[in-house]
Structure formats: structure tokens, C-alpha cells
């Protein structure tokens, strides 16, 4: 009987030469990816984990048992009800964005498990697919018990099945990243850029935010997921290294494109949680500090190791660290009924903290919050006044990322209009326009929410848009957590009187 060390390399490297069909028929470029190379160029493909199926199952079983144990110990409804209200909404954002996005990761990995160009790659992608099933099931399991208490948690499953504007944006991202992608681009974009660059470390940061917020169930959940990510993210490196030898320009393009696309979504999910939906005394760092400490340094180091350059828009990206998620949060607060979670206005102490952390543009953001607060002061607090402190005009969206046109700064929005083959498009930023122009045939026919409204595909009246198209109800659409009843706002009113 072979020892593990003898058996594993044999089982992982199980490739053979085809005699009845051509190799490019077994692995067509359209689905395996480009550049198309003969297997001889891939046969050195290797990763460091070298896990057997038996070891995989044993490890995953242990991890699942640990998640169950934490759920039973601290994941009961009464535990969740003790969490701070803003953090609860961070949970709702992640519950919705995470579960079915992970399921699309199953599809992407299964494509790698069939069309990856070396058997070791295909083996790892099979484990990656099983990982992503697990990452779909864990949040659905943990959050399902909360639905009977708070129907906004229903969006953990419902989110991607709606035409909510944020779901449209997230689906646009994941459909391209995972569902409709060839194996090479999928593994470089997902494993190398998104997971190594963002989510692997994001989960470490999220676990830390959850711990500070005393949310031990979520902490355990993301930690458990992160350990899988750390393993299957390794698929991307050897794929990238092989493609680099043959077409480094293409790799640079993929990195530039997917770093920007990942940044857009990531900055909203994590930026809002770190700087607004975590109680001030529980924030271990600002979103920008997290990005600088955990994401940027290591990502640039990794790029350097592979002989890649910083994305061409790096200065724009660094500038956005100071402002983009703040503009999105303020915009979303004033259109909160279009979303499935609740918001808070940053009070004087939070704004002081934000000013310290984000001195570059905070004056402009502070003026916005002052104006919003003034509206609550005028109308008075109360659920009945929610829609009086809410936007009425239609917000607008980028034709690439599908997110609101909230880039640049409040002084100078960076949106740009492009006419392409007789049709007008608008983009939130230069990088989004650049991505569109690299492969216009890929994106040109997609309609953002505004164009759906203008063409009659989606209702123009806000209440109809919310209920019929976004599938929200007055019970589930987003509100101010305190219905405008903030102690600091009351104090101002008293002093003004």
C-alpha cells in the first residue's frame, strides 16, 4: 500500500495524452481561457496545500462542528438581540451579499474543476467548489433563524433574486466574475485579485469588528470561511504565473480590471460596516487604516513578486480611500427605503472621529450630514416622518459597476458620459469607463436602473419601484435606526429653543 507521500502526487497529477480527440477540444479556449497553451506548459502547476480528499473532509467536518458549537452557545436569538442596532445592520448587509455570491463561486470553481488545465488545479478547484457550497450554507443556516424575528434577514436568501439596485450591481459583478467566466480569468480574478487581494484579509478584519461588537457567531462564521479562502485562493497564483510567462500584458489587464471592480463592491460592504455600522467605541480602526494596513501593502508586494505593476489608476484609488464609501453611505442614507437594512446618522462624536480619520474631504461630508440632521430637526423624529427625510428624485447609476454615481468628491463628481455606437453611457469614474471600453461587447447591452425606468421596464414612481421591482415592503425597507430621535439632535433643539 502506498504511503500518503507516495500516493498523493500520483492522485493529484493524473493527466494523460488524448488519442481520440484533440487537447483543444477537451479544453476549448472559450471556456478554459486564454492564452491557450498545450498541457506541457501547465504540467508544473503546483500549490502548497496538497490536500487529499480524506484530509479535506476531516478538516471541514471539524470546522463545521465548531460553527455549530458556537451557534448553539452564542448564536441564539437572545444573543443576537443584545447586539448594538447599527452592527445588526452590518450583519444584514453581509448576510445578503455573501450567501448566494458564494454559490456563484461554486459555479466558477466547478468550471475550473472541469476546464482547468492541469489535474492538480482541477483537484484544488473541486475543493474550492465544496468550500463555496459551505460558505453558501453557513450564512443561510445561521441567519435563517433570525427571519422570524426580523424579516430584513430574509434578504440573506432573497437579495440576489430581486432587482434591487444593489443586487443589480452585485449580480453584474458576480455574473462576470464567476458565473459566465472562463477558467483562467475566473481563477486569476477570483483567487488572486478578489480573495488574495481583498476577502481573505477582509474576513480577518470583519472577524475583528465582530469580536469588538461582541458578535461571536459572526466572528466564528467569517473565521471559518477565511480558513477555506486561504487555501483555495492559492489556485490563482500558479495560474497567473503560467499566463505571465506567455502574456504578461493580459495578466496586467486582468489585475487592473478586477482590482477596480472588487474595490467598488468591497469598499461598500466593508467601508460602511467599519466606519458607520460599528459602534464608535467598538471600532478598532477606520476603513482607510484597515485598507492601508491589511490590503494595500500586501497586495503591492504580491504584484511586485509576480513582476506586475500597480494598476494605472492607483492615484485615483488612493484618493477614493478618503471619500468614496462616505459618499455612498450618505447617498444611501438619504435613499434608505431602497435598501433592506437600516442606517444611523453619525452624531457629533462619530463625526469628530471621522474628521480625524479622514481630514482630506470631511468638511464636505460634514456639511451633508448637517443638512440631513437639519431636516430631521425640522420634521421632528418619528417613523411617520421617515419619508420626509428621504430623497425623492431618482438617483443615478454607473453603466459599468451599476453603483450610484457617487465617485470623485462632493465638490467635483468624477462621472463621465460616453457615446458608443450611437448610445449614451455614463460612468462613475475613469476606471469604470476604461473597463467598459476594453470589452464593450461584454457590457454594452446591460441596462442600469435609470435606463430600465426610462424604457418602462421598471416603474418610475418610487413606491412602485420599491415594492414591485426592488421587492421591498414597508416592513423591510430601510429606515433610520432611531427614526431621527437622536439625543444629540434633541439637545440641539433644546438649546436652539
Amino acid at each position, binding site marked *: 500500500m502506498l504511503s500518503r507521500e507516495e500516493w498523493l502526487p500520483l492522485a493529484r497529477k493524473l493527466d494523460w495524452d488524448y488519442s481520440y480527440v484533440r487537447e483543444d477540444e477537451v479544453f476549448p479556449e472559450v471556456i478554459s481561457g486564454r492564452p491557450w497553451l498545450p498541457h506541457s506548459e501547465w504540467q508544473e502547476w503546483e500549490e502548497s496545500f496538497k490536500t487529499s480528499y480524506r484530509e479535506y473532509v476531516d478538516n471541514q467536518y471539524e470546522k463545521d462542528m465548531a460553527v455549530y458549537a458556537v451557534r448553539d452557545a452564542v448564536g441564539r436569538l437572545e444573543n443576537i438581540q443584545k447586539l448594538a442596532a447599527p452592527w445588526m445592520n452590518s450583519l444584514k448587509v453581509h448576510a445578503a451579499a455573501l450567501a448566494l455570491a458564494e454559490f456563484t463561486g461554486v459555479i466558477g470553481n466547478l468550471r475550473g474543476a472541469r476546464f482547468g488545465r492541469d489535474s492538480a488545479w482541477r483537484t484544488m478547484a473541486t475543493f474550492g467548489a465544496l468550500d463555496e457550497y459551505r460558505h453558501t450554507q453557513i450564512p443561510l443556516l445561521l441567519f435563517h433563524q433570525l427571519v422570524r424575528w426580523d424579516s430584513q434577514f430574509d434578504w440573506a436568501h432573497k437579495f440576489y433574486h430581486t432587482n434591487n439596485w444593489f443586487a443589480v450591481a452585485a449580480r453584474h459583478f458576480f455574473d462576470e466574475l464567476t458565473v459566465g467566466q472562463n477558467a483562467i480569468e475566473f481563477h486569476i480574478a477570483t483567487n488572486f485579485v478578489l480573495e488574495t487581494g481583498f476577502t481573505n484579509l477582509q474576513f480577518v478584519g470583519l472577524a475583528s469588528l465582530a469580536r469588538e461588537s461582541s458578535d461571536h457567531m459572526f466572528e466564528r462564521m467569517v473565521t471559518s470561511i477565511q480558513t477555506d479562502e486561504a487555501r483555495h485562493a492559492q489556485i490563482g497564483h500558479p495560474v497567473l504565473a503560467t499566463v505571465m510567462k506567455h502574456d504578461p500584458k493580459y495578466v496586467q489587464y486582468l489585475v487592473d480590471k478586477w482590482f477596480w471592480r472588487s474595490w467598488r463592491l468591497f469598499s461598500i460592504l466593508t467601508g460602511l460596516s467599519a466606519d458607520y455600522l460599528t459602534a464608535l467605541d467598538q471600532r478598532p480602526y477606520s476603513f482607510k487604516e484597515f485598507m492601508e494596513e491589511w490590503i494595500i501593502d500586501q497586495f503591492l508586494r504580491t504584484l511586485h513578486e509576480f513582476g506586475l505593476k500597480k494598476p494605472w489608476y492607483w492615484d485615483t484609488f488612493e484618493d477614493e480611500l478618503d471619500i468614496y464609501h462616505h459618499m455612498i453611505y450618505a447617498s444611501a442614507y438619504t435613499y434608505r427605503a431602497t435598501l433592506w437594512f437600516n442606517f444611523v446618522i453619525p452624531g457629533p462624536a462619530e463625526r469628530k472621529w471621522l474628521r480625524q480619520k479622514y481630514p482630506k474631504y470631511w468638511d464636505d461630508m460634514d456639511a451633508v450630514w448637517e443638512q440631513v440632521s437639519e431636516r430631521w430637526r425640522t420634521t421632528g423624529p418619528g417613523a411617520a416622518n421617515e419619508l420626509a427625510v428621504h430623497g425623492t*428624485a431618482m438617483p443615478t447609476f454607473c453603466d459599468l459597476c451599476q453603483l450610484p*454615481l457617487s465617485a470623485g468628491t462632493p*465638490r467635483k463628481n468624477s462621472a463621465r*458620459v460616453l457615446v458608443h455606437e450611437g448610445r449614451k453611457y455614463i460612468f462613475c469614474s475613469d476606471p469604470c469607463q476604461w473597463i467598459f471600453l476594453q470589452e464593450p461587447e461584454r457590457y454594452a447591452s446591460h441596462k442600469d436602473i435609470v435606463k430600465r425606468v426610462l424604457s418602462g421596464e421598471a416603474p418610475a414612481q418610487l413606491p412602485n419601484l420599491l415594492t414591485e421591482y426592488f421587492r421591498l415592503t414597508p416592513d423591510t425597507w430601510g429606515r433610520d435606526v432611531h427614526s431621527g430621535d437622536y439625543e444629540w439632535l434633541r439637545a440641539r433643539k433644546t438649546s436652539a429653543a
Partner: protein
Amino acid sequence: MPIALYGFLQGDTVGLLILAEEGDTLQALARKLEDAASLRVAGRDRVQLVYNGKTMDPTMTVAQAGLQALDRFDVISG
């Protein structure tokens, strides 16, 4: 038939869809955007409308200025 335009008000955090009539003056168009964004941005006494990089005469109409569906305009302090 209203013309759908992308309006960006200086000081605001998001672009808004503004429906204009061909006969609206640019001053009225600027006010429409200011009203639409008033939850986030306080009104100003004097504003300017910028289209295609040029500051426009506020007495011109939308049709005279050549604004067409899905064009971008900006309203800035001035």
C-alpha cells in the same frame, strides 16, 4: 416630452436624474436640481450651470443650450 438629464450639484454625494422641459431656462433647471438635492445640500444664492465644460447663460432655454437626453450638467457655486 421631458428630457432626462444627469444633474450633479456641487456639494452633493450622488448624481440625480432631472426631467427638464425644452422651454425651461437653465436657471430653472439649476433650481430643479437644487430642490431635488435639498435634503443633502443647502440652497445657495448664486449658482452657475456648466455644460460640456462651459458656464452657460442662465437665461437660455434647455433647447437653446442644446441639452439632449442623458447629457450631464453640473451646478456649481458662482
